[in-house]
């Protein structure tokens, strides 16, 4: 009897020791695994590209960098890129904030339509906005002719407008996520004590949201300077780094110079990242301590509402007009030239295989990306090992690199052992996962910025081990970040072009590539119709996601994805 008791105790000891060991080290295991993934699927291709920028026909050389600084068109394209990035960033943070403020605190009837409009551009490839803008405001555009405007769309105005419209969802999603997480009771009490709406916003909402706003700004900056479609189509005589890097490969077949441009393109991103860390250090705001209280919506002060609306409405109109042109374009023979109604574009079935392939790839990338992104965010925020900042930086770098370069990097890196992946669907999925990781990671980090460690510590004090805490406390809180990561990766993958165009293999066409090729050939009707079909699929998927979420008891809407 006594002997049996002894064994039990020893067993329990052994079991406890194992659990304690896992408890103490699990986060490090996770970190190790994630580091390995990042190293293989981001660093390795990036390093391959870096090598290309330093490796000429006769070995190591700095000639290509010398060439970059020798001719002013190269560094002028760097300056233009920085101007484009910062102006789009400033505009989008302001506009995104207005949209997010109105959809989280504005009048109920406004919330849904504004949110839908802000997210709508996700469903179309970014360069669709150039095409809409040319159709509307080009020298022979619909509105230009109608109102006799003398408006030159092939200019800064055109490029920035297109970029703002294309990246509105990114900024909006990030900022909305943050504003949702700000505990309303703080604003409530300030309001009860007589603070004006402006004062509340200035001294509570914005400071609390500041880390999130900065993150949104960083992502927008990085994404805009890496996008090549709009600057390429609307840039006119202005040189920009990203399209030039892409087109140096497709036009001059000059890999080396393209790699140099890409490496130069990464530099401002690293700089921004360092600045961002500098500003954020010591500003760990915490508002969720315990359960957030559900508050009655507070009526928003007209002094805020009206200027916000004045900012949002023109943007909303532009988004709707752009999509109006796409819808219109898919039902007429040639937009602006022959406006007779036809249904041929929609009935065209050639695009369906490509759309189905894209759907599979996007689903895979979305799920995998959300899991990796959430885990990364957690490890970065809660881990206690060195190199967490480095990890965050690597995770973000997928965004900073122009898709073309990372696409080529993937071919160089994964077309030989030990990672022979080219020619499979997996390389496309992995490429999208690691390129679009940043949104999931950043959403997760913003969320964790606001969750006090105390909740986790309290559970630990009550005897919960790491796994329990992770599953019962962290995952539910981070679920909205998970969903944000999934939705963003899913939608961007649906429309991502610049890097997958190098990875699609014969017989495995993707919708984005199909739309790009048809649009390139001026078959705007077919391109528009395919876009419409993709939008429909994305919409249905999102609706399904909501149903599943409701059935599983996780309310996506309330979590504010």
């Amino acid at each position, binding site marked *: 009897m006594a002997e049996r008791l002894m064994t039990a105790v020893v067993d329990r000891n052994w079991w406890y020791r194992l659990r304690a060991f896992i408890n103490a080290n699990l986060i490090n295991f996770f970190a190790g695994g994630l580091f390995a993934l990042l190293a293989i699927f981001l660093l390795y291709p990036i390093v391959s590209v870096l090598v290309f920028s330093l490796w000429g026909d006769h070995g190591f050389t700095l000639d290509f960098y010398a060439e970059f600084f020798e001719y002013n068109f190269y560094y002028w394209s760097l300056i233009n890129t920085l101007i484009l990035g910062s102006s789009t960033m400033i505009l989008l943070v302001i506009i995104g904030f207005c949209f997010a403020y109105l959809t989280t605190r504005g009048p109920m009837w406004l919330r849904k339509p504004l949110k839908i409009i802000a997210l709508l551009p996700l469903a179309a490839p970014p360069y669709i906005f150039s095409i809409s803008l040319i159709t509307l405001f080009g020298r022979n555009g619909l509105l230009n002719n109608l109102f006799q405007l003398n408006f030159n769309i092939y200019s800064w105005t055109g490029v920035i407008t297109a970029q703002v419209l294309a990246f509105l969802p990114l900024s909006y999603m990030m900022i909305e996520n943050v504003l949702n997480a700000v505990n309303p009771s703080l604003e409530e009490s300030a309001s009860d004590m007589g603070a004006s709406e402006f004062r509340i916003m200035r001294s509570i909402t914005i400071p609390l949201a500041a880390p999130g706003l900065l993150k949104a700004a960083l992502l927008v900056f990085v994404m805009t300077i890496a996008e090549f479609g709009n600057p390429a189509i609307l840039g006119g005589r202005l040189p920009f780094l990203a399209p030039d890097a892409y087109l140096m490969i497709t036009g001059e077949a000059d890999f080396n110079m393209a790699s140099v441009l890409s490496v130069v393109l990464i530099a401002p991103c690293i700089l921004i990242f360092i600045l961002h860390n500098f500003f954020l250090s010591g500003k760990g705001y915490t508002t969720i301590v315990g359960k957030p209280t559900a508050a009655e919506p507070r009526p928003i002060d007209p002094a805020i509402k009206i200027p916000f609306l004045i900012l949002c409405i023109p943007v909303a109109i532009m988004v709707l007009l752009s999509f109006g042109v796409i819808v219109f374009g898919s039902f007429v023979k040639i937009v602006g030239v022959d406006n007779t109604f036809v249904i041929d574009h929609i009935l065209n079935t050639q695009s369906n295989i490509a759309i189905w392939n894209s759907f599979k790839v996007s689903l895979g990338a979305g799920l995998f990306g959300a899991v990796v992104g959430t885990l990364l965010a957690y490890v970065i925020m809660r881990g206690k090992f060195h190199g967490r900042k480095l990890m965050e930086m690597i995770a973000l770098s997928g965004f900073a690199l122009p898709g073309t370069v990372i696409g080529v990097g993937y*071919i160089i890196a994964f077309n030989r052992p030990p990672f022979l992946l080219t020619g499979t669907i997996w390389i496309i999925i992995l490429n999208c996962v690691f390129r679009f990781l940043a949104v999931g990671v950043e959403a997760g980090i913003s969320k964790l910025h606001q969750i006090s460690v105390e909740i986790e510590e309290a559970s630990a004090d009550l005897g919960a081990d790491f796994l329990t805490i992770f599953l019962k406390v962290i995952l539910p809180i981070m679920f909205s970040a998970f969903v944000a990561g999934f939705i963003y990766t899913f939608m961007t993958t649906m429309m991502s072009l610049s890097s997958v165009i190098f990875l699609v293999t014969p*017989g495995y066409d993707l919708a984005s590539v199909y739309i790009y090729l048809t649009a390139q050939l001026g078959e705007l009707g077919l391109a528009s119709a395919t876009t419409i079909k993709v939008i429909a699929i994305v919409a249905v998927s999102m609706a399904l996601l909501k149903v599943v979420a409701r059935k599983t008891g996780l309310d996506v809407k309330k979590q504010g994805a």
Partner: protein
Amino acid sequence: MKRISLTLVALVMLVVFAAGMAQADSISAYLGFSREVNEALAKRIEEKTGIEVKNVTLSWGEIWARLRSEAPRFNADMVMSFGGAAALEGTQKGYYEAYQSPAWEDIDPSFKSPDGTYYALGTFSFVLVGNKTKLAEKGYAMPTSWKELLDPKWKGQIVVPSPRTSGTAFMINYSFLSLFGEKDGWKFLEDLDNNIAFYTRSGNAPTDLVARGEYLLGITADENVLKRINDGYPLEWNVPAEGIGYEGNYCVILKGTRKLELAKKVVDYLGSQDCSEFIASMGYIPPRPGIASGLYGENLPRFIDLDHAWAYKNQRDIMLNWKRKFMMKETEDAKKVGDEREKSGG
């Protein structure tokens, strides 16, 4: 309920990923014509030879970028249609399988390499396009010689692809250098630059911009012109008196293919009378003589005498010179515009 839904989701995912691919008599190829031509070509090859062509449409630059990064393990068996520079350089690098096809024996040697590494399926060119409606509005006639484009009345009305980013544009530029001689050629390009609104990134973009009435005139790849006119755009085109340049649409078999026999059969078909007829109907000039081209008709247009090998060899120098002349200028112009704006604004 929660479990069931999650299981359902997992099941759906499995089904989605389990969708396998059936294997038939097929080869895979990178195709570099425009999408419609590619689809039609693949269909035609399957009809005539029974070999399915799994394909992906890419631009020439993209194909070349892929070959360079994929070598020596190519993810396709063949390339159908890319430029001479890539055909030559790839041959030097040993990317292609040499095959002396009997079907190509009696075809003009300018359409094939002596050792059988590459064959030209056809050739394409560049032409001058104009917007009928807009020209009529202004009361201008379509120019009939390249020199007429230097008239100041066209200032800011001409769009041309940029050789920095478009293979077609490189051909346009060295055609002018060959036509007028190197010195006068650069002078012509400089004068032309005064009238050019901007250099487009893609070789086909001027066709679009002019068809939509954004600009009056464009120098552009001839590939989409016919299609755009058939679509109903008010587009007109001509071959100016001095003639036009040309470039082959080359095809190769990639080394290391496991389907060499099938690829050889496809190359044999590409040399046939039937394929030449198809290529001609698409608006290209086919390797076999006496077939009317869909765009140019019975009589071949006047061609400028070109030394392709010279151009490929000097590509980097020509490009650097071009950038120095026009890109530097562009940025100075941009600076000037910026300064003026600042003055008027402040």
